[in-house]
């Protein structure tokens, strides 16, 4: 039995009636709320065709499509970079040498504590505030998400049951081989949900390109609303695009996880569950 169902009794006839009433009230309130929004849109003239026109005009749709590709490119570059950065620094943090462990810890903690936008502004200033370039955005995303991933990787590696590591040492593996052959492959499955949610974070944060006028969805949106004076409509359309991409990514991750889990034996699944609990 899962926790939510333990919070309340199986409803009797009276409770069922009350629940139905609450359900109807909720639905009514939601419909009323939606109605008010539509009414406000209507009375303030925000539903006018001219304001929505660019989103059904092929030329602008093409611009938005191109911008979506730019955004995806930024995200993919940033995620690849972040995975490399995270891998490197998680190994650094797990190092047995203090001279490597401490600087790795400092760098990771620094980039996790500093706002991403501030980082991007700083890197942008190194580029003399040049507009239309991707580099500051990508570099900022790599440093921030890489640091978060470094922590995730470290926790994931440590979540592999200690017996596995001890057994590997017992049969004479070196530390390098233990990490590479024993800990890493087992931790990947455990870490997958965390990695995917970090990918979503990175994807959402590509919107910060807006502040430094880097190519991408938000920049294209800015071009459109400067021409049509339709900030509200543009922001709504862009939000829907981002939500669609993110949900697709979430769904893909679930599918991948399901596949990975199916391929495991029952014993391996139990081990992975245990590791997952330790990580949570």
């Amino acid at each position, binding site marked *: *039995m*899962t*926790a*939510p169902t*333990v*919070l*309340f*009794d199986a*409803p009797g006839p009276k*409770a069922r009636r009350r*629940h139905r009433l*609450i*359900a109807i009230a*909720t*639905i009514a309130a*939601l419909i009323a709320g939606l109605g008010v*929004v539509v009414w*406000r*849109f209507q*009375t*303030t003239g*925000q539903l006018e065709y001219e304001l929505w026109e660019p989103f059904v005009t092929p030329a602008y749709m093409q611009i938005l499509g191109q911008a979506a590709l730019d955004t995806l490119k930024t995200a993919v570059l940033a995620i690849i970079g972040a995975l490399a950065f995270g891998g490197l620094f998680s190994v650094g943090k797990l190092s047995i040498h203090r001279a490597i462990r401490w600087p790795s810890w400092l760098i990771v903690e*620094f980039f996790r*504590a*500093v*706002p*991403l*936008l*501030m980082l991007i*502004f*700083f890197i942008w*200033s*190194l580029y003399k*505030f040049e507009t239309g370039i991707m580099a500051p955005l990508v570099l900022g995303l790599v440093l921030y998400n890489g640091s978060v991933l470094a922590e995730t990787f470290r926790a994931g590696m440590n979540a592999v049951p200690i017996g596995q590591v001890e057994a590997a040492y017992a049969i004479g593996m070196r530390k390098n081989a233990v990490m590479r052959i024993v800990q890493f492959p087992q931790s990947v499955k455990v870490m997958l949900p965390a990695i995917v949610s970090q990918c*979503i974070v990175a994807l*959402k*944060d590509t*919107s*910060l390109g*807006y*502040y430094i006028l880097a190519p991408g969805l*938000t920049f294209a949106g800015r071009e459109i609303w400067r021409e049509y004076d339709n*900030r*509200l409509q*543009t*922001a*709504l359309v*862009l*939000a829907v695009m*981002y*939500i669609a991409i*993110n*949900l697709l990514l*979430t769904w893909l991750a679930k599918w991948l996880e399901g596949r990975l889990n199916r391929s495991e034996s029952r014993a391996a699944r139990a081990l992975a569950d245990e590791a997952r609990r330790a990580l949570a």
Partner: protein
Amino acid sequence: MDAMLDNIDLLLRGFTETAKLLVASGALAMLLGTVVAVARVSPVSVLRAAGTTYVTLFRNTPLLMLILITYYGMPRLGIDFGFFGNITLAMGVYTSAFIAEALRSGVNGVPLGQAEAARAIGMPFTMTMTQVVLPQAFRIVVPPLVSQLIALTKNTSLAATFGIAEATFRLNGMLRDFPADRWWIFGGYALGYIVIVAVLSAIAISLERRWKVGR
């Protein structure tokens, strides 16, 4: 170095604005997040579905889009809380989705026996939640809640180009005015954020220790 020290008042004023944004949107997020979390575990399936939709919607929208909608969009619809209010609303709503998720996992983390005992002595759902489950859930989720507040601290930087002279806005201005001192300026503002994050973490640790449920 000199540019940073001479303009230290700009930095302090910037972080005052950051703190104001943090407190206002943090309070709103906690309030909304709690309501949504309760809806997500309630016995009424419509409420659960509404809560889930809320969380899915606002977790997957970039914060910048929400700010654009509340800052530029709402005044067009004749709804305007002033620019501080509008930005606070966007940040509060965005963060509330994450807080609701954290709280819900906390509710699931309260041992089953607690809720069962509450039901056994005849408490209805509202009482079970307010008297037994939520107080314990809040204690369990102190660390994840605080990490959401830390994320919010960093997210307040997004107000930089929307008429609020918070820390990142000041940073950007100073980077442009004193390009030679940019490393010092960056270090100074980074330190400011690190101090806020450190204070929040310290509060979390002390709360966690004080509120530890004796089992």
